[in-house]
């Protein structure tokens, strides 16, 4: 089965396409890095899979079910997708414990009125332990450091035991030790057969886990192949044309910029 299949996909916000003419197939269990500079459309591409950006044209299928214009995943996908957003400002308005935040990750797996069962609670505990916060389970999230709060969000996605895990910039602003810890967690998750789709600027920290790279540039796929082939330079921009590999279908150097997405 294929985890993700896009055909001539146009994805954007409102009526404005940010990503256009994208063909992409990700098989079950693959570990894919979605690379690209700021405004390239890589985040929009990922958000289109999650129903957070609008599919304006073409076909987008996730876990075998189409993502429509309704921006809402069909029932078949519920509870099978894990998502780690780029940043999470803990609202701070109403306190919540680590257990409560991570518990949300299990909710989508239950029916509309289902309650967390002992099996769900132990999945929450396992997920929190996997990110190294087992001793903070009952603490308010607001009392954790920024890096620890990010780990809570990883745990929330892991608690769902997802078939597809989408992460947006999980290593941005995270220190080296935490990046290594994250890589170890992702390696474990990947080993269980979960498909990984990681939107990122830089792949150094996760190079051992991610095997395939999809480079998005100006709203189109500029490179699709082994991660090792997607060159990255110090300016954080990817230069697939400099890798000696042929550009993927649909990419033209003279293609006018579709739009910038301002980091969305």
């Amino acid at each position, binding site marked *: 089965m294929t985890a993700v299949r896009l055909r001539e996909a146009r994805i954007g916000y*409102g009526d404005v396409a940010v990503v256009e003419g994208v063909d992409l197939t990700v098989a079950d269990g693959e570990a894919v890095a979605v690379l690209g500079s700021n405004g390239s459309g890589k985040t929009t591409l990922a958000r289109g899979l*999650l*129903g*957070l950006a609008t599919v304006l044209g073409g076909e987008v299928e996730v876990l075998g079910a189409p993502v429509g214009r309704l*921006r*809402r*995943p069909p*029932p078949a*996908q*519920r*509870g*099978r*997708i*894990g*998502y780690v*957003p780029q940043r*999470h400002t803990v*609202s701070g*308005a*109403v*306190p*919540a*414990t680590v*257990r*409560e*935040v991570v*518990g*949300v*990750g299990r*909710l*989508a797996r239950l029916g*509309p*009125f289902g*309650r*967390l069962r002992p099996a769900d609670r132990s999945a929450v505990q396992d997920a929190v332990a996997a990110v*190294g916060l087992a*001793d*903070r389970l*009952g*603490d*308010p999230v607001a009392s954790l450091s920024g890096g*620890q709060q990010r780990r809570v969000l990883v745990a*929330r996605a892991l608690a*769902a035991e997802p078939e597809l895990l*989408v992460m947006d910039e999980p290593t941005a602003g995270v220190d080296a030790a935490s990046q290594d810890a994250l890589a170890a967690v992702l390696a474990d998750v990947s080993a269980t057969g979960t498909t990984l789709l990681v939107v990122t600027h830089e792949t150094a920290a996760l190079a051992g886990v991610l095997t395939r790279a999809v480079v998005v540039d100006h709203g189109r796929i500029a490179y699709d192949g082994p991660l090792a082939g997607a060159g990255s330079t110090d300016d954080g921009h990817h230069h697939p044309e400099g890798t000696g590999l042929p550009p993927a279908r649909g990419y033209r150097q003279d293609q006018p910029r579709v739009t910038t997405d301002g980091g969305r």
Partner: protein
Amino acid sequence: MEVLEYGFMQRALLASLMVGLVAPAVGVFLVQRRLSLLGDGLGHVALTGVAIGVLTSTAPVGTALMAAVLGAVLIELVRARGRTSGDVALAVLFYGGIAGGVVLLSLAPRGQATNLEAYLFGAITTTTTADVAVFGAITVVVLGVVGLLGSRLYAVSDDEEYARAVGLPVLALNVVLAALVAATVVLSMRVVGLLLISALMIVPSAVAQQLARSFRQTVYLACAIGLVTSVAGTTASYYAGTPSGGTIVLLAIALFLLATTAVAVREATARRRHRRRAEVHAAHPHEHGAGCGHPAVLHGDHVDYDHDGHLHAPHRTGAGVHYDEHGEHAPPAGTGGRA
């Protein structure tokens, strides 16, 4: 007690008990979603419903409930379609609601329209037995729905985008929450009045969130605070001859100020203690590290150093090494109280 001898006060206290319990149970989700003023807006919309009820000689509670629920659903649909125009659309709906209510009430036959103030600021002693029955039904339904869907309402209020991404029915849950708010508005109408409803939903939650550690604790604590202030305020208003709504809200705000001050004082004390210890340690002959002579204590994700009976957590700053105090932690057994 004298206050309990009158039938109207029994009904008033019963109504205030239900309002005090229900309003914060719904309000916590509004605070979490940063939509604190939704209750206020729906109170405005409910006034049009009240006016329609008065004009058509039907029970205003029923028509107010219908107007508020319709307004709530409309608001959620507007919000779901896009945010930029949503703000203005809400303002139009809210002020249209209060303006429509005032104009329609003025058309009512003389004698009935004078009730306007009672709806705006509450007239708890006018609560009828039929009202109490309706309020009881609303209370059971609202608390039942919160009990059943609370964790999902929390999920959507906390991180709507995540909830959408993993496939929770976000729009449906938002509509449910808005309908709960509408029902609460109507329930609170007699007790605190349409203009003060929001306060009873928001202020107890604002107190509770400063003291609680978890969301669940916040909900329970907010309900307890709401219950106590509502019943105490109603009783006080009977003896002082003041309007119940204003009395209840002032009481809740007094509690809020008290809690805010207490938390601020506690934090200032902790900061001062930290600074004083930092001064002591500024004269430190060494930086803590391996082999500095102070026992190292593994603490979660970092190493602390047992020093003069308390723990130091060193971390580098621009100006050198800074030590956080872990004062509440007892020194590990066998090493305590080193000089």
